[in-house]
């Protein structure tokens, strides 16, 4: 590392030259956000700069009062002489990597990302840099994603089989990103789809942003419980095991998450079915993305930090831990509780 263009402070990642923070968790003057998940998007900052493609989601998270400016993918701006631009991260709608350049030194803050194709957001862009800041939510080789088509076939089959058995299908998926990816990818001809309140509003923002989604109805707006018969309910993981599920009568539960690779994780979550569907890079994708940057130094901010750092160093790269307070919306098997209130 030639200089400390970006460093970790107690408020978040900070660029001193441009006097801005990236995904800060304590209030600052100027915050650049990589995406709208709760652990990267905190309220109370004076000014925000977010990717244009995710502005509707940021608005929901930050509230009507927030001063939000936007920048399109690939568009360059200068902040006190520091050149910055957003590039697609493939994580969720409007998620970005932030490229920061000053005096021939380039940093990329990747935020959360994945390389697996996802029809609900722009694909990950490989950006060369000197210093790459990466996540490691699934930074162990046991995390290896099954092709998405196969996972959706599993979900479709499960939904059909539940229908035959007279059961409602309840799938738990993070309300921003995963929920919409599920709805986009499943076979919408099978039956009707209802959403939990936490999912519905964000789904509307997805539609407004031009993502192709099936017709859905908010569970709370349903008067006759018979309407749920044979349907798919999309709810945040926090609804698992709650009284809210009572209204559906006989039902089967599924959880769409990368953690479902491990049998113990599924049993702990006490769901009937686990579907391995993640919005984060798996082990191989992490390697691919990191190598493609040609970075001299790799910083690992969250997830399996020591494991990925050691692996990279043993494989000819220069990696360091940089422990930020991000957890990834899948950071723990239990999602952050605030998701419920978003």
């Amino acid at each position: 590392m030639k200089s400390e263009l970006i460093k970790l402070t107690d408020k978040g990642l900070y660029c001193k030259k441009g006097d801005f923070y990236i995904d800060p968790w304590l209030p600052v003057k100027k915050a650049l956000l990589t995406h709208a998940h709760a652990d990267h998007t905190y309220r109370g900052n004076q000014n925000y700069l977010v990717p244009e493609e995710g502005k509707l989601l940021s608005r929901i998270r930050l509230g009507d009062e927030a001063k939000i400016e936007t920048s399109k993918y690939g568009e360059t701006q200068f902040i006190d002489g520091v050149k910055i631009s957003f590039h697609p991260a493939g994580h969720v709608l409007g998620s970005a990597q932030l490229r920061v350049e000053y005096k021939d030194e380039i940093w990329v803050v990747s935020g959360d990302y994945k390389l697996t194709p996802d029809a609900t957001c722009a694909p990950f862009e490989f950006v060369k840099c000197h210093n790459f800041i990466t996540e490691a939510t699934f930074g162990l080789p046991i995390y290896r994603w099954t092709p998405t088509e196969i996972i959706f076939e599993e979900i479709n089959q499960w939904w059909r089989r539940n229908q035959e058995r007279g059961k409602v299908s309840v799938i738990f998926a993070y309300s921003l990103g995963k929920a919409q990816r599920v709805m986009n990818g499943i076979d919408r001809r099978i039956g009707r789809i209802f959403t939990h309140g936490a999912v519905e509003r964000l789904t509307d923002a997805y539609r407004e942003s031009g993502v192709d989604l099936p017709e859905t109805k908010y569970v709370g707006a349903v008067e006759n419980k018979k309407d749920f018969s044979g349907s798919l309910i999309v709810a945040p993981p926090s609804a698992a095991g709650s009284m809210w599920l009572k209204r559906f009568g006989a039902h089967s539960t599924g959880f769409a998450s990368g953690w479902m690779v491990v049998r113990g994780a599924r049993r702990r979550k006490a769901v009937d079915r686990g579907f391995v569907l993640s919005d984060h890079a798996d082990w191989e994708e992490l390697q691919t993305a990191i190598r493609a940057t040609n970075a001299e130094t790799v910083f690992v901010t969250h997830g399996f930090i020591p494991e990925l750092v050691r692996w990279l160093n043993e494989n000819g790269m220069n990696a360091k831990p940089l422990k930020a307070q991000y957890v990834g919306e899948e950071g723990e098997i239990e999602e952050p509780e605030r998701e419920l209130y978003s």
Partner: protein
Amino acid sequence: MKLFTELYTELDQTNKTNEKVEVLRFYFERATAENAAWALYFLSGRKPRQIVPSKKLREWALALTDIPEWLFDESRDTVGDGAETIALLLPNNSEIDETPLHELIEKRLLPLRGASEEIQREEVINSWNQMNYAQRLIYNKLISGSFRVGVSQQLVTRALSEISELPKDIIAQRLMGAWEPTAGFYEQLVSTELGADETPIARPFPFHLAHQIDFPLGDLGDVGEWQAEWKWDGIRAQVIKRAGQVFIWSRGEDLVTERFPEIAAAAQNLPDGTVLDGEILPWLDDSVLPFNELQRRIGRKTIGAKLLAEVPVILQCYDLLEFESTDIRFFEFKERRRLLSEVLDKLNADTQKIFQITESVEAGSWAELAVKRETSRTLKVEGFMLKRLASPYRVGRHRGDWWKWKIDPYTIDAVLLYAQKGTGKRSVLFTDYTFAVWSGGELVPFAKAYSGLTDKEIRRVDKFIRENTKETFGPVRSVTPRLVFELAFEAIQKSKRHKSGVAVRFPRILRWREDKSIKDADSLETIHALIESQGTAD
């Protein structure tokens, strides 16, 4: 093994009893007898001993990947299972091994035992290359001796009973004892042709079970309408003598005749057409032994002479369900009890030592009974059973006529000292805790406990452990002593095997005492005082 893989995967994916039975039926309706026999062998908890040590499997798997040993170990700690970790790490393969289960076991697995390492390695890698993830998982577990299917014997019995249209107790009876997983065995198992010993004579009655009393005793009415009996901690059982044959059934509807030969032999002296309900207890010199002594006998198929002498058993007789070949469950309890003592009185002296009628504790009032209950610990019982004298013998767990009135468990405030990740569904969180109490200004570990916290509390404790780890010893972490928990347990004994000098039975976390600091925790002296007060020697 395709059908068997589906069976395993589906059983693994549901917690619902009915679905498990449905999945089992689906399998047994389609499997050939020779495959079904092996499946049944595994489903009933039998498994081949380790054929290849997991260390070797790990070594060969690592050679097929670019993963270093330390990264495998980190992965294993997260997964919580070595066989599963290997299955997850091996290079992808979507092919399915079509070899029938029996052929895989008999031709490819069992012959590997004792083979040279080179041959073992070649065959294991060859098998991995033909299998997908789900099959590798099963294969790895089978070969390393850790295969286990999450299904109870009762569900398997029920599924087989449904497809064969045989009564459950016949299936249970046919599954008893030693058998070989052959096609012939399976065909016989589901054959509707009944053997001479398969008449309903073996069939037990459903047990009448009780709830813990959760209201004032006075609500039960007059104490004179009730019988109080000591509540023993053993194995609830029915002993059947019909047509010259003896059957002992445990409450789990397992036929356990062979496990308790002394009771089986004594039961030969019962008149034909007799069914006793009682508790099997380890009993030496007119006194009950701790439950863990009985556990030494439960785990074994055959009981050696040494164990028979060290841990003899008796039956504390509670009730008589069949008398002179007549079902008398509808008789009033006091009448059944009178007939019970009549039957037992006629037995010879040696048999009477095995079949003891349980004591009825007399009391003129509930208050007097409450005083007597205080002596439970000295008598090494769990409190009282209260039975309405006019009650019939009912089916299943029932409120109203029978009540458990157990003594409160011992409680101790202890400090969290070590933590370890759980296994299975808890494998990502620190859920296995070791607790300590004070002794001469030091914290001495004395009990391990797992259950009793809510998921939310578990997550908070997990966070505390991660942030306050002092040292790591393999999977175990020592943590800064700060959290205090109230532990409950059923019994305490002195123990030479434990560092603290005490052993506790069934410890569990009662609650997290966030209001207490570690200096408020109890001491080893307090525990020793509890032992003295119950009058237990070691």
